[in-house]
């Protein structure tokens, strides 16, 4: 009788002899609820209060659509260019031994550690027409600071580690035997890279690209200094949200925030699916 009752109970956790499950789970859920889930719920609730039409009216304002376009294409450009350079850096740091390799490897995380405001004023100074890099480019007619190109440069800076650190472990795990076999059978280095190494690296590169893209879309601190912040041209969505808040347009800020949250969720979903794909390919 008691055995059948126990069997009928839904087992939502595996039995364990360790203590402390209920208190630790309670603290975790309460803290998560207060800091993250609750506030997000409040934002969605405020958005629901606008009604579908109110929400739609705000997110189809020309300035919102214009800035969304700027955000999307600069983030896409930055992540694409970084996918190339990030792969190069990851490959060189993992495959080759050379003086200064450890230092360079540590430096990859600089954008994680350097506060974004510092990155912002540093990049803005470097790429201004009289800066170290800007002064070289200005005579060629290339202007980076205070244009959309500046946004791309700042985004590239902050998102580089995402790509390098996602791709690096996969390059480390590549079996050199396959490349050696291909080489013995007469494949050129380019053929080996394109037909053997790259297909193995590609899923992780795609994941890194998606992580970088998500980070670029949300970035604010490093961009405001180097972008001109002109609506439709060099203003990104997070800057627009702050502008709405400064004008006390809370409805506008809330609706645009919810839109961005939706985009982030879609990206998160894509990243999770990509990672599941990578796991399947690597068999665990």
């Amino acid at each position, binding site marked *: 009788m008691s055995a059948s009752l126990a069997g009928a109970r839904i087992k*939502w*956790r595996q039995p364990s002899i*360790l*203590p402390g*499950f209920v208190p*630790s789970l309670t*603290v*975790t*859920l309460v803290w998560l609820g207060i*800091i*993250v889930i*609750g*506030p*997000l719920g*409040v*934002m969605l609730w*405020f958005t629901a209060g606008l009604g579908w039409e109110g929400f739609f009216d705000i997110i189809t304002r020309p300035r919102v659509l214009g800035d969304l376009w700027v955000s999307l294409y600069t983030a896409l450009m930055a992540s694409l260019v970084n996918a190339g*350079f990030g792969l*190069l*850096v990851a*490959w*060189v740091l993992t495959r*080759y031994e050379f003086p200064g390799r*450890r230092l*360079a*490897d*540590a*430096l*990859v995380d*600089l*954008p994680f*550690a350097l*506060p*974004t*405001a*510092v*990155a912002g*004023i*540093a*990049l803005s*100074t*470097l790429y201004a027409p009289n800066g170290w890099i800007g002064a070289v480019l200005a005579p060629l007619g290339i202007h980076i600071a205070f244009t959309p190109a500046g946004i791309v440069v700042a985004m590239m800076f902050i998102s*580089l580690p995402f790509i390098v650190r*996602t791709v690096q*472990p996969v390059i480390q795990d590549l079996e050199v035997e396959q490349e050696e076999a291909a080489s013995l059978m007469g494949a050129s280095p380019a053929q080996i890279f394109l037909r053997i190494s790259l297909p193995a690296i590609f899923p992780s590169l795609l994941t890194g690209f998606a992580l970088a893209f998500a980070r670029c*879309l*949300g*970035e604010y*601190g490093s961009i405001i200094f180097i972008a001109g912040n002109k609506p439709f041209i060099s203003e990104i969505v*997070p800057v627009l*949200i*702050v502008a709405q*808040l400064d004008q006390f347009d809370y409805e506008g*800020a809330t609706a645009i925030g919810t839109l*961005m*949250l939706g985009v*982030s969720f879609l*990206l*998160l979903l894509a990243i*999770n699916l990509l990672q599941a794909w990578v796991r399947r390919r690597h068999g665990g």
Partner: protein
Amino acid sequence: MVRITLIIAAMLFMALFLVFPLAVVFSEALSAGLGSYLSSIADPNVTSAIELTLIIAVIAVPANLIFGVCASWCIARFDFVGRNLLITLIDLPFSISPVIAGLLEVLLFGLNGLLGNWLSNNNIQIIFALPGMVIATIFVTFPFVAREVIPLAQEQGNDEEEAAVTLGASGLQIFWRVSLPKLRWGLFYGVLLCNARAMGEFGAVSVVSGKVFGETDTLSLAVESLYESYEIQAAFAVASLLAMLALVTLVLKSALEWWHREELHAVRRKKAA
């Protein structure tokens, strides 16, 4: 030949994109000599920004440390329905723009926010004051400790803890004498990254700060205030403090990765997979 070309290309890219920005911070900070560098830092508004930054970190980092330990205990030591969903929810603040983190606090505690009326009736100020900045910082650094410790604890398994239970240890004894020593380097690693972000956060804190230079400006916000009032050298002097914090963080992080690479390596692999 290919190898040398690739190495040179990668190092040139890194020099241009990572070393130059770092170098320009120190070069601009010292552009008017050491004397004015030191006097920019000794400015009372800057020292009060240093103080505020430290206060925020001293509250936010332990809060996330305690959370990370709790979360790792229930997630890594037990197997229950919804565990993966819980991990995803903990990671959520990573994929949310810091500006939205600030917006959330405004919607909760601002004058027109959910609790705005109640707070102003009781004369409690959260937005444009220290509490709002602390909460926004806790939000953006929320996953830092948890996501370092959970994979490490999962990787290490429960064998030692289970042995301790069978030998009659109490829950607290197991935690302090078995689990904590096992996890200490992972915890330290998480705290290091959490602290760097907490001290350097800009977007979220800028939305909820009153932005009064000398009162509600953190170091990051002071960089902005000075830069916007064209005190470029002073802005870079303050920025150099944050850059040094970043460099110290990187050195400690690399040292940890070097000395404890066995355990941390397993974690990185697990996260990347």
